[in-house]
C-alpha cells in the first residue's frame, strides 16, 4: 500500500532526526509540513523520530467495516433526535438575554452535534470513500436547482473515488481461496466465496 509521511506538530520536539534520514529532503520545510510531492513513503523518518511525531498514512484506504441495516436505522433515529436537540438549543441561545443560559445552550447544541457525528460514523458514514457516502453525494447531483449541493458533490466525487465497489466489471480470481468469478459494474468488490477484500482479488 502506497503511503506518505505526516508530522504531528504537537508532538514534534525538533530533534531533527527526520532531516538526517530523509533521502529526498521532504521533511525539511519552512512550515514544518512534510512535502508530500517529495515524500517517497519509505518510512525512515517515522522510524528515526524519537518523539513518535511522524506517522505514515495510506493514499488508498481499505473499505470500512460493514454495518447492519438494523444498527443503521437505530443510529438514524438517534441522529434525528440529536438534530432536534441541537436546533432547539441553538434557537434558545440566539433568543435569550440570559448569558449563562445562552452558553449552556451553545454547549448542548455543540455536544448534540458531536454525539450525532460519532453516531453517524458508526451508522456507515465513516469514510468519504464508502459507497454509502458516495451514493448520498450522487443523490445531490439529481437536484440541479440548488447550486452548492450539486456543485460541491460533483467536485468531491471527482477527487474521492469509491473504495468498495468495482468500477469496471469483469472476471476475477481470489488469491486466498482461488475462487474464480464474475463481477459487474458497481458490484461490491469482494470475493463472493470467502469475502476477501479487493486487494486480494486479481483481474483475469
Amino acid at each position, binding site marked *: 500500500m502506497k503511503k506518505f509521511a505526516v508530522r504531528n506538530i504537537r508532538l514534534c520536539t525538533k530533534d531533527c532526526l527526520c532531516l538526517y534520514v530523509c533521502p529526498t529532503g521532504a521533511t525539511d520545510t519552512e512550515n514544518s509540513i512534510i512535502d508530500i510531492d517529495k515524500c517517497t513513503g519509505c518510512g525512515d523518518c517515522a522510524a528515526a523520530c524519537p518523539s513518535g511525531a511522524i506517522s505514515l498514512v495510506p493514499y488508498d484506504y481499505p473499505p470500512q467495516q460493514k454495518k447492519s441495516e438494523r444498527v443503521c436505522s437505530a443510529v438514524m433515529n*438517534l441522529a*434525528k433526535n440529536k438534530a*432536534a436537540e441541537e436546533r432547539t438549543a441553538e434557537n434558545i441561545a440566539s433568543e435569550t438575554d440570559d448569558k449563562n443560559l445562552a452558553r449552556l445552550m451553545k454547549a448542548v447544541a455543540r455536544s448534540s452535534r458531536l454525539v450525532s457525528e460519532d453516531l453517524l460514523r458508526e451508522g456507515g458514514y465513516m469514510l468519504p470513500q464508502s459507497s454509502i457516502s458516495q451514493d448520498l453525494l450522487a443523490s445531490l447531483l439529481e437536484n440541479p436547482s440548488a447550486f452548492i449541493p450539486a456543485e460541491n458533490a460533483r467536485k468531491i466525487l471527482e477527487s474521492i473515488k469509491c473504495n468498495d465497489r468495482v468500477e469496471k466489471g469483469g472476471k476475477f480470481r481470489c488469491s486466498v481461496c482461488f475462487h474464480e468469478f464474475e463481477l459487474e459494474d458497481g458490484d461490491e468488490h469482494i470475493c463472493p466465496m470467502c469475502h476477501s477484500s479487493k486487494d486480494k482479488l486479481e483481474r483475469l
Partner: protein
Amino acid sequence: MKYVCSVCGYVYDEEVEGVPFSELPDDWACPMCKAPKSLFFAEDSEKDDVKTEHIDVIDEDMTEIPPLVLSQIFSNLARGCEKQYKENESKLFTELSEYYRKASGNIENPSTTVIAEKLSEDLSSLYPTLRERSEMLKDRGALRVTVWGEKVTRMALSLVDRYEKEGSSFLDNTKIWVCSICGFIYIGDTPPAICPVCKVPDWKFECIEGGNV
C-alpha cells in the same frame, strides 16, 4: 456500601469517606466529572436491576434524511477528510454541512423542556434499542458509541434539569467546556486532565464562549 458514578465510574466508598452517601448534601457532585448525586448507583444494586422497559422503536424510512441530519453527516465527513489530509475536500464538505444547516427550519417555541424530553427519550428508548442491536450483532463499534453517547446524554440532561429547577446562576463566574471528541459537557474553571468519558487529554476540550450565537 459503595456508590459508582454512571458517567465516569468514580467510586464513593462510604467506609473510606466516613460520611454515608445519603447524608451528602443535594448539591454534592462527582469529584471527577461533576455529575450530580442522582447519577450515582449503589454498587451491589447491579446493572440489571435498572433494566428499563423500552419500546423497540419502529424503523423509519432511511431515504428521507432531514436537512439537519444531512448537515451532521457532512460535517462528520469533513472531519474524516481532515484526518486523511484532504483539505480541499474537507472544505467542500463543510460548505455542504453549512448549506443544510441553514436549510433546516427553526423550532417553534423552543424551550429547555423540549430538550429535556428529547434527551430523556434518547436514554429511555433510542439508546437501549441501539445497545440491544449492537450486542446481538456483536458490533463493538456501535456498542462503543452507545456507551459514550449514553454518558454524555445523561450529563447534558442533568444540566438542563438543573437549569429548569434553579435557573442559570450556577453558571455564574465559571466556564463551560465541551469535549471535542465525545461531546461531554464539563462545568469548571479548567477542563479535566482527561475526559471522564472518552479519556482524551484536556487540550481536546473547547471552551464555550460569550453570550449569543
